[in-house]
Each structure stands twice: as C-alpha cells, then as structure tokens.
C-alpha cells in the first residue's frame, strides 16, 4: 500500500536554528498538508499546498514557516528560527483530489521535533 514517508523520524535542534522537515507524498497525489501535534494536545492544521503554492494556512503558520516542493517529489516544511514552543510532532499528509471526494488523507509517520 502506498505510503507517505517522512524524514527524519526525530530531530533535536537548538533554539534559533533552522530546521527542514522532509516528506515524500504518494506519487499520484496532488494536495499536500502539514499538521502538528504538541504533546498531549490535538492535531492542528498548519498549511495546505496545491499546484506549487499555498492554498490555505492557519494562524500558527507565521513568517517563520515556509513550505516548498523543490523537485516534484519532496515536500518540505522549513522553520526558520525555531522556538521552544515549536517542539511537537509534525505530520505530513497527501490526498489525491483534496477534500473534494472526502477520501481522507494519508498521513506520514511524523517527525518528532524537539527544540532545546
């Protein structure tokens, strides 16, 4: 069964450093997403991406965050200057036709980001 692959599984970084979280969505999917889950809390939407541009972003997704699809297969989330409160599990997801048919996303296994 096709999978969404995320790397690394766990990343520890110093506060103020830049991090890039990587995702390889399912190959025929067109819509891509990042969500995050702070430990013990609910899963929150960060951003959706379609046709090489951001479709929607939440208020969490401020100027410190950016996404790109540099080579047609990878989908990355960059945090420019990490803060302690960025520590969370970050999930990438992809969908073949967005929400149009309500198929639900396929999520990756997540990257646990720890900012120290």
């Amino acid at each position: 069964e096709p999978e969404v692959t995320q790397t690394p599984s766990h990343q520890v970084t110093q506060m103020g450093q830049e991090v890039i979280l990587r995702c390889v969505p399912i190959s025929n999917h067109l819509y891509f997403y990042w969500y995050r889950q702070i430990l013990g809390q609910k899963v929150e939407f960060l951003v959706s991406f379609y046709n090489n541009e951001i479709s929607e972003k939440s208020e969490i997704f401020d100027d410190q965050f950016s996404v790109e699809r540099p080579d047609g297969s990878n989908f990355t989330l960059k945090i420019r200057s990490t803060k302690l409160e960025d520590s969370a599990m970050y999930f990438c997801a992809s969908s073949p036709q967005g929400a149009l048919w309500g198929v639900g996303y396929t999520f990756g296994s997540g990257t646990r980001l720890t900012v120290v």
Partner: protein
Amino acid sequence: AQTVTQSQPEMSVQEAETVTLSCTYDTSENNYYLFWYKQPPSRQMILVIRQEAYKQQNATENRFSVNFQKAAKSFSLKISDSQLGDTAMYFCAFMKPNRDDKIIFGKGTRLHILP
C-alpha cells in the same frame, strides 16, 4: 467555524468487549465528511472509518462501525470484540467537501484495551 468535541478523554475496556467513543460536532454545512483516526503508540495517524453526511447508512469497517446522527450532529464510533491492538488515541475529525480544505480534529479519546 466548525468544531469537533470528544467528551471522553480516556476509556478502558476489557479485551473482547464492545466500546463506544463519542463525538459531536458543530457546523452549518449540509454536506461534509466525518472520520475516525487511530493513533497508536507509534503516533502514526491511521484512518479507521469515514462517513459522508449525505448518506444515511452508517459506515462499517469490520469490527468498527459508526452511529451517525446528522440532526443531533453526533458521530460515535463502536468497536466490537475489542483487541489489545486497538489500544490507541482515537480522533474524531470533520472536513468540508471543498478542494484542499483542512481536517478539523477533536482532542481525542485515549482508549486502553485491558487483557
């Protein structure tokens, strides 16, 4: 704005028993999708079951079934013959049927299946 509420933070049941997880939601939309996602200790998000609001028939996937009450905006998950591998966090989720719209999750119910 849509909201999803799960009123049971944590539940425990014996193996082989049936358990029902509650979920209510609020929306002004008439057509939408509802989901239950499972998050085991590995923390991966796994789709368990989905329901289209325009379908009256409740969705079923093997031991998992839902009780969808559209007028009451209720969407509960029933797990029959529970197994140890069902131990996980369960999230109820809502999505409008618009292109690239986001999923809104509830806070989750932590389910423990006891041997």
